[in-house]
Every structure is written in structure tokens, then in C-alpha cells.
């Protein structure tokens, strides 16, 4: 069985890398190549196990990281050379380029957060509808021919919508019915939580299930969390995770 579900948790390889750096308390200005590469590859492996549709960008980044790692494992040559050679070498440090990209991406990721706040702030302000002034103009000789718009403007407008509408439509879409759908599993999980004490160990959701079912369960849990229908608790590091209904 093949699932074409895009994992929404990360926005791309840069986002994933940022996350790994933060989680492991690494210095963004001095990333240990071997460590970050191993961690990254681990995620890619998991995505593969999940048979998730791994976007090509993740794979390109994987290749870059592997290259970076191997070049760092090689004996450092610059020690044997003159200063100018060192400079050159430093400029070509692939970590440098990655660091710059990560920092740049992080700036905009934070800016996106600020925009979200602005939008939420604005959404707390309400206004009133435009007043209906037609009564006022009906008293007068109505002179709508003042409106400076032609038929062509209207046709232009229409063709713009059509092209926009086209843009909104998915380029392609394959809908296939799975024998066991994420929706069904979501409902089941909510049911389980609703019947019992409202809290269930994470592992319990996976017991006695085939691999495809485990994958579906995992995705269902992610979906439920995304829609804030469930939450999870973990008392301390490595403790069992408890899933609860919100």
C-alpha cells in the first residue's frame, strides 16, 4: 500500500534542520556535520518507513549533508598549506553556505509568526457594513453614467477570475479509497478516548496492528492533534506519552 500524504509537521528540509538544531541545542553558527547528518538521515528513514511522499527537496538536502559529512571526515588539508589557501578553503566550507541559508530562512519564519500575530490582532477589530445610500440618490436625478467603467473592464475582470480559479484548482489529484482510511481511524481514536477515562497511552493505539494500520494510526493522531481534537502529555523525558481528548 502506498500513501501519498505529505507530512505537514515540517515546512521543508530547512525547517527540519532548524528543528534538529534547536532540539539538540546545537550552535547554528557551528553545526557539527556528522551529528546533524545522522539525525537528518534518521528522519528521512522514518518518513520512508511511513511510506510518506518525501519531497525531492528533502533528498537533495540529504545529498548535500552526506557530502558535507564526508568532506569533514577527510583529514583536514589546510593545515599543511599557506594562509591564502586556508582562506580559500574556508570560503568553500559547505557548512558556511548551509548556515547562511538556515539563518536567512529562520528570519523569515519568525517574520511569518509576526505577521500571524498582526492578522489575529486585526481580526479582533470589527466594522459595520457600508450604509445603503440608495435612498439618497433616488431623490435626485440618478446619474450612474458617472461610473467610469466600460464593458471591457468587466470582461477583463471576468477572465482574471477564470485564470485565478484555474490556479486554485489542484494540478492533478488522485483520489483512492483505502481499505482503512485515516478518517475512520480518527473517529475510532476519538471514540476510544470518549468511552474510557479520556486518556490512553500512546503505545496502546498501535497494539496488534499491521504496519499499514500503524501508519494510518500515526497519521490519524497527527491529524487529530493538528485540528486540536486531542492533545498529549509526557511527564518527563522518556516517560510514556499519554493521549487525551481536548
Amino acid at each position, binding site marked *: 500500500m502506498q500513501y501519498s500524504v505529505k507530512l505537514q509537521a515540517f515546512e521543508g528540509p530547512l525547517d527540519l534542520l532548524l528543528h534538529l538544531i534547536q532540539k539538540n541545542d546545537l550552535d547554528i553558527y557551528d553545526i557539527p556535520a556528522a551529528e546533524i547528518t545522522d539525525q537528518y538521515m534518521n528522519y528521512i528513514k522514518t518518513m520512508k518507513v511511513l511510506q510518506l511522499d518525501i519531497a525531492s527537496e528533502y533528498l537533495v538536502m540529504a545529498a548535500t549533508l552526506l557530502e558535507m559529512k564526508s568532506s569533514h571526515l577527510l583529514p583536514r588539508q589546510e593545515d599543511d598549506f599557506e594562509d591564502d589557501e586556508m582562506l580559500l578553503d574556508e570560503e568553500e566550507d559547505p557548512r558556511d553556505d548551509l548556515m547562511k541559508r538556515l539563518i536567512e530562512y529562520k528570519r523569515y519564519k519568525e517574520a511569518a509568526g509576526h505577521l500571524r500575530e498582526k492578522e489575529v490582532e486585526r481580526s479582533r477589530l470589527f466594522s459595520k*457594513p457600508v450604509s445603503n445610500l440608495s435612498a439618497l*440618490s433616488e431623490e*435626485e436625478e440618478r446619474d*450612474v453614467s458617472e461610473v467610469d467603467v466600460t464593458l471591457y*473592464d468587466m*470582461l477583463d475582470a471576468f477572465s482574471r*477570475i477564470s485564470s485565478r480559479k484555474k490556479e486554485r484548482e489542484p*494540478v*492533478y489529484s488522485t483520489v483512492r479509497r483505502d481499505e482503512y482510511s485515516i478518517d475512520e481511524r480518527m473517529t475510532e481514536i476519538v471514540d476510544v478516548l470518549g468511552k474510557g477515562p479520556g486518556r490512553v497511552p500512546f503505545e496502546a493505539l498501535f497494539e496488534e496492528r499491521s504496519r499499514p494500520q500503524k501508519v494510518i494510526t500515526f497519521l490519524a493522531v497527527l491529524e487529530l492533534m493538528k485540528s486540536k481534537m486531542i492533545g498529549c502529555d509526557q511527564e518527563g523525558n522518556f516517560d510514556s506519552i499519554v493521549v487525551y481528548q481536548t
Partner: protein
Amino acid sequence: MKTDEMKAVIEGLLFVSGEEGMDKKQLAEVLGEDLESVNKGIEALTADYSEGNRGIQILEAGGTLQLTTKAEHAPYFKKLVQSPASATLSQAALETLAIIAYRQPVSRVEIEDVRGVKSERPIRTLMGKLLIREAGRAEGTGRAILYGTTPEFLEQFGLRSIEELPPLPENPDTEDAEGEADLFFERFQEQFDEPS
């Protein structure tokens, strides 16, 4: 709630409720206060509005309170309707007008479906400019308002009747290279997926 704060919230509530206004009972419900204190709030607000040079006032009619403009400023509102500044239509209004002209009678939901964005505002603008009007109600649940064009619309666009509208532009078929690109990436991925 203090009277001062209530006064402010009442002002906001009357403002958003616009031409419909609100009665005291509704106000009390939304505020979660009893009628007596709401009355105090209204009194305080009315006193505020009677001071200084204001452009809006509180009007109580048939048990409903609403904010309205003042009669002495009417000439300016007339000018607003006829103002050349409001002569051009926004892209949003034009799009909405096009959909209504070609699909009438049509509901707001249908318009929003085609445009992909909320369209309440352009509909109001067009109503205000007398280019569209309500043209009945849809059948079935909800009985949504249907919109159609006005005689003023025809006049404005120099049409004798709605049948004289030029045919709609066909969807310019731009088969993009999108599909191919995706195919390429899928292949690319397969390459990686193969055990190495």
C-alpha cells in the same frame, strides 16, 4: 461592569449592528447585565453624543437603538454617492459585477465560489451604486438572496438588454508544463528510493 466601560461596549455594539440596531434587551443579553444598568450605560453614552461636534448620533425608534448620521450632513453623503472618486470600481467589485451580469440571478455563495474569496463587501458596493439589486430568493433551505443587474447597469454599459452582453471569453487553455515537472520529480524520487 462599570458604567464607563459599558458605555464603550454599547457604542461598539451599536456600531457593528449598523442599520439594524439593537434593542435594550439584546444589549443586556450580550453584555450579561441587567436592564437597569444597561439603561445607565445608554444614558451616559447619549450624554456623550450630545456634547461637542459629532457626525453621528444615537437614534431610538420603535424600541431599537441605532447610530445614524445627522440630517444636516446629508449633502455630503449625496456627494459621496456621486463623487468621481467612487466612480471607478475596484477589481473586486468589477469581478462580482461580471459574475452577476452573466449568471443572474445568482446567490452570494455562488459568487464566492467563483471568485474564491468573500464577496460581501463588493456586493454592498454594487448595491450602493445601484448597479445590482435583489432579484428574488433561491428555493430550498435558507432561501438565499439572489442578485441581478439593474436598468442603471444597462444604461451604464450602453446595453439595450442583458442579451446584448458580449459572449464570455473562453477559458484560455494554457496547458502548463506543471504536470510534466511533477512527473519528473516523481521519477527523480524513485531513483532515490531504489536500494543502492
